[in-house]
């Protein structure tokens, strides 16, 4: 009853690991899949190895954390060997869905990356939304509707195998819908909403300085959920491609809220820190119970329920 389909890809359940959270190795991704996620998104990676920012790279705030890890990755060449190790099925024999998150600073880089990895994963998520990425990357693209259009277009064009392309967008813009429509027009098969919020900063008053070495970073966790819900709701009303909801999910009620707002599936990141790896299996059980209680036969019936 939790099964759901997104851009022709069949998920065992609508719970997906969010990009950048325990997503740097096949080992941790497989652990998450084994623990009950319907799919996983990798840490965002690009052509070259990148150490990311110096520590401190994360700091706890009320209702979540701020991070500026800085998109660390060993680069596409080495990361491909990780992708190959992601299990295609879990121990029960159910299909696992692997989504690669990639970034770059222009359409050529995105196209190159798509080409390199499309055969290794089920879907590709374009990170044009990281709020603390290096110059020209992440939100620098996704805060501009023309650049978003170009990058999505180029990425779509680069696929030879129909691997669905998802654009992950940032809420930190004046007009999200304009950007979402750009992505849709450029051929995105789905959009993921939202990447981390703000950016935010925490100053330690005893140290007298911002805590993160990058000074600011993206906010995630329960506190950002209302923003994510608004984004999903608005995009559902204004766009025609499926939406993957993400931001602050920590229990089944949150998942239902995202589905009701218009998400076809959801991603979970920061709450793993609070709730542990078994958050996926816990939510699955309770979600099934909720669906039975409320006479829902499928996830589909719940999508956009609150927009009616």
């Amino acid at each position, binding site marked *: 009853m939790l099964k759901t389909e997104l851009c022709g890809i069949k998920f065992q359940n609508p719970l997906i690991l969010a990009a950048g959270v325990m997503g740097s190795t096949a080992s941790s991704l497989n652990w998450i899949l084994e623990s009950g996620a319907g799919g996983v998104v990798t840490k965002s990676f690009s052509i070259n190895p990148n150490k990311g920012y110096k520590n401190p790279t994360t700091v706890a705030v009320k209702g979540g954390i701020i*991070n500026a890890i800085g998109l660390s990755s060993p680069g596409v060449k080495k990361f491909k060997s990780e992708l190959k190790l992601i299990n295609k099925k879990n121990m029960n024999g159910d299909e696992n869905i692997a989504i690669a998150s990639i970034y770059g600073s222009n359409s050529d880089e995105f196209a190159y990356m798509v080409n390199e990895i499309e055969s290794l994963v089920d879907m590709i998520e374009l990170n044009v939304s990281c709020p603390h990425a290096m110059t020209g990357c992440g939100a620098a693209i996704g805060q501009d509707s023309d650049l978003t259009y170009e990058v999505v277009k180029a990425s779509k064009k680069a696929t030879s195998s129909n691997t669905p392309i998802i654009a992950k967008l940032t809420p930190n813009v004046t007009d999200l819908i304009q950007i979402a429509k750009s992505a849709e027009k450029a051929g995105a098969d789905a959009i993921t909403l939202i990447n981390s919020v703000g950016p935010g900063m925490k100053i330690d008053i005893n140290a007298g300085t911002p805590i993160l070495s990058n000074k600011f970073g993206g906010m995630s966790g329960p506190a950002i959920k209302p923003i994510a819900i608004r984004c999903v709701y608005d995009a559902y009303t204004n766009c025609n491609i499926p939406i993957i909801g993400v931001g602050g999910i920590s229990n089944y009620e949150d998942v239902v809220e995202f589905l009701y707002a218009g998400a076809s599936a959801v991603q979970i990141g920061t709450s793993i820190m609070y709730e542990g790896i078994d958050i996926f299996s816990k939510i699955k059980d309770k979600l099934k119970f909720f669906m039975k209680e409320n006479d829902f036969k499928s996830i589909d019936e719940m999508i956009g329920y609150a927009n009616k």
Partner: protein
Amino acid sequence: MNKIINNYEILEIKKIISETDTIKTFIFNWEMKEGRIPIPGQFVMVWNFLGKNDEKPMSISIIDRENSKIGITVKKIGDFTEKLHNLSVGDKLGIRGPYGNGFNIENIENKKILAIGGGVGMAPIACFTSYIGQKSNIDVVCASITKDELLFSEKLEDNSANIFTCTDDGTCGFEGYATHRTIDLLKSKSYDMAVVCGPELMMKGIFELLEDREIPAQYSMERYMKCAMGICGQCCVDNTGWRICVEGPVFSNKDLKKIEEFGKYHRNASGEKELY
């Protein structure tokens, strides 16, 4: 939210002990309250906000509940640790934690325990030994390259543990590696369990020894850390995916067997594998 995520406390260095030429212990006042009472084997993240504005993990080497103090013991090996060594009493550091699982110290009383520490790996081992104190019978193998680098051997002797020093160059105690010293000990003695921390290749050697003899053991591992909160995935190990900062840094011999990269490679800041 189940887990408490401790934020920084900016703490004054209350005392600095020069243990060896390259190793110093730093002592801080530490409020011992729920969620922040450390156990041996746990670590803290140390933020040098004045220096390089960097932050790295350090094992807790001293837990003094009575006087509400903790200590860390730092070996100078690079830029960050060198800057720490330049600090003086009264200087401040940001400390968050404690993190990680720590040694499993349940049902540890009246056991014959072998504790093995190599180099600055003695930090959690000394902490464990002081913590358990007279409750058990502890033999400590205290290993280093040379005499001047031997850590905590005197302090622990005071603590009624039996100390077996060994140096690569024979300048103090047994001449040779910790593995050799251990083989030697195991000839004459039997143990209920062991705790081990040191360079990974040393631990690998010890692991094989103890497995052969079926002595249950706990090993404290190190991996590159960023968040230390179990979110970034930087410290995950192959093939289990476990996070050194949450499921570790201490693993039982049973679990360690599943960590295939143990003794083979670790990952650097960008996630590239580096072989041992």
